[in-house]
């Protein structure tokens, strides 16, 4: 996409801003990324930095001129301001200087895991007999990156009106905590503290399953208070001759959340036997046609080959310029009526910062 064509972004990468820079690059911004001080796994470099111009720091003095020319600086420095950016990017300049901190006012070391731990999300994720569980990948970093991109674009919008840039400070801890929309507010208003319930969805007095075995994998579905959905499911069970006592339930006058757990278990056993006898693709088709609210739990390989995602051109081939290796990665962020012009689908090899002249030439 070219929504941000001509916008110059300098990114000081260190995990926290990387996905934000990736989003801006995908939308057409010219993103120049200063490589992280720390070694990162090659898959993470590939995923977060394709479509950017990557620079290595052969001369720290070369960074300040880039920052002065940039519309946006995504500043993810963890170990102090090694380039002195805050000294030169005041609000009287045109630059929107987005400084991202693990936690404002603290220089303590932090990683995606420790940020997720503090968010209250991990405490309620996982099985009761195991430790709290992380989300896959690096979700605190991703959430922070999106907030950094948001903050940068807010600054860009405001710049048209106020005529200059500004400084924006983003907290990674708050970004991760904000995603946990239920736990703190539930405690404040009810005194209840969430616990790990595995794949059980607890509502009211009872808990219902969320994950079910199909013949060839898993699906997610829950017996919730949605009469049309329940009638649609039971109709198919009845057609297949396996509805049992579910055929006799008056769903309009049944509140699943108030049912005794043993009744729920009996009803779930009927549904569970049926799901186990079917392929998950067939269950998915029924859900789409009849409105069951069931979703197939796709394996990553199935996601890569998803007909739906292929129809929307989500996955793109990205080439690592240094090795020639290719990977299939998510490309467009969304679909638009404006015809997209994708960024280069390459992970560029880092070049010395002192030799980068494109911005000064333009």
């Amino acid at each position, binding site marked *: 996409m070219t929504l941000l064509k001509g916008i110059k972004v300098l990114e000081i990468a260190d995990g926290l801003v990387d996905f934000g820079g990736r989003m801006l690059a995908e939308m057409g911004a010219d993103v120049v990324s200063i490589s992280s001080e720390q070694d990162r796994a090659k898959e993470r470099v590939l995923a977060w930095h394709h479509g950017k111009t990557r620079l290595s720091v052969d001369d720290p003095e070369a960074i300040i001129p880039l920052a002065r020319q940039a519309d946006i600086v995504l500043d993810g420095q963890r170990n102090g301001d090694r380039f002195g950016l805050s000294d030169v990017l005041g609000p009287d300049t045109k630059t929107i200087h987005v400084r991202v901190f693990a936690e404002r006012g603290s220089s303590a070391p932090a990683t995606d895991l*420790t940020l997720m731990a503090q968010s209250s*999300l991990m*405490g*309620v994720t996982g099985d009761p007999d195991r430790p709290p569980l992380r989300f*896959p990948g690096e979700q605190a970093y991703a959430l922070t990156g999106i907030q*950094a991109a948001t903050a940068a674009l807010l600054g860009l919008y405001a710049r048209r009106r106020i005529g200059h840039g500004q400084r924006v400070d983003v907290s990674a801890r708050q970004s991760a905590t904000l995603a946990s929309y239920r736990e703190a507010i539930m405690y404040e208003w009810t005194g209840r503290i969430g616990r790990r319930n595995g794949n059980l969805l607890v509502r009211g007095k009872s808990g219902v399953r969320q994950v079910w075995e199909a013949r060839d994998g898993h699906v997610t579905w829950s017996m919730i208070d949605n009469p049309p959905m329940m009638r649609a499911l039971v109709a198919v069970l009845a057609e297949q001759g396996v509805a049992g006592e579910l055929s006799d339930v008056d769903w309009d006058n049944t509140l699943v959340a108030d049912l005794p757990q043993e009744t729920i278990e009996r009803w779930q056993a009927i549904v569970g036997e049926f799901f186990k006898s079917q392929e998950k693709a067939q269950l998915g088709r029924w859900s789409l046609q009849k409105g069951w609210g069931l979703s197939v739990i796709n394996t990553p390989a199935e*996601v890569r080959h998803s007909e*739906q995602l292929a129809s929307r051109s989500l996955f793109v081939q990205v080439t690592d310029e240094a090795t020639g290796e290719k990977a299939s990665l998510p490309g467009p962020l969304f*679909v638009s009526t404006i015809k997209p012009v994708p960024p280069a689908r390459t992970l560029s090899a880092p070049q010395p910062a002192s030799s980068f002249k494109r911005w000064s030439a333009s």
Partner: protein
Amino acid sequence: MGALDGLKIADFSWVGAGPRATKDLADNGAIVIKIESRKRPDLGRLSPPFAGGQKNLDGSAFFAQTNTSKKSVTINLSTPEGVEIAKKLIAWADVVVENFGPGYMERIGLGYETLKSIRPDIILASVSVAGRTGPMAGFRGYGNSAAAHSGHAALTGWAGRAPHMPPLAYGDVVAPMFATVAILAALEHHARTGEGQHLDISQTEPMVHVIADLYAHASMPDKAGNEDADYLLHGVFPCAGDDRWIAIAIDNHGQLTPLADVLELTVPPDEAALAEATAKFEAGDLAAKLRSLGIAAAPVLDGRDVAQSAELAAAGHFVALDHPVLGSARMPAPPYQLSETPWAMTAAPLLGEHNREVLGEIAGLSDAEIARLEAEGVLA
């Protein structure tokens, strides 16, 4: 003065996937008019917890935190007159946001082509589970559907156990963040070209994007609990007390010795010995000790810990807002501070609180017309 002062949003969205995006815009100064109805209330208004513990369309704390800084009007979109009034708000707006089921906006006569005929440069943002095109365009699901479709559920959990669903509708968190970014980028494009556009944001695709590092592997990794191949040690260990835990991440050998010293273990410590040793400490104390030695560590916090966190309070993470039903209620704030155009939050609106103000000033309806339309169930 907010970053988005002067921006006008007609917000038809409900529950989580749309309202979280328009909250971002409203908190930053945009005028966001939430079009809702008593005939088909925003399910967010029916979501607990409630003030006083009783279900109340104006008393949901869940709704209140998702809809700060907005104005509310009630328009029954199943009536032709209601749709005509909605069109007046669309003519006023720079941006329209919706997350109805597929085809609903078209069925009521408010599809993108109609919106363009009202305002040619309109930006329409639509959020849905699978997107508006493709074989699954008609899929009706929830935020957790995206976790299933994207690979999140399959990649969460412990080896040898079933896939794990997130404990919240994570798609309802990530997708609206993408919507906010998309809208802001579309506004930048509009400022330079005068062009509007229809932004079609799927919940599934953002959920794939945020695990792109896993998709970058030539052969996809299986779910691996809390492990991470980038780290020497990456886990969660028990601490003293009921369900108290500490997360520790070590990425270089130089950190193993101080960790072992604190826990009185030999190097390298095995995980079973670590768990036994950490269980003797209070989580916050141990985390502070390890952090002082340069080791990334943090206690695993629960909802009470977050609500009572002194660090989050000092950072201004919660803002106390006076609400007519909830009283003084703390609401989470944006996680950023803009030096020149700071955000400012106001309380979420009561249902239809701004009917007279908005429908009078923007739709040009007189008090008598508003009263008649209310009586006829059009403004309801």
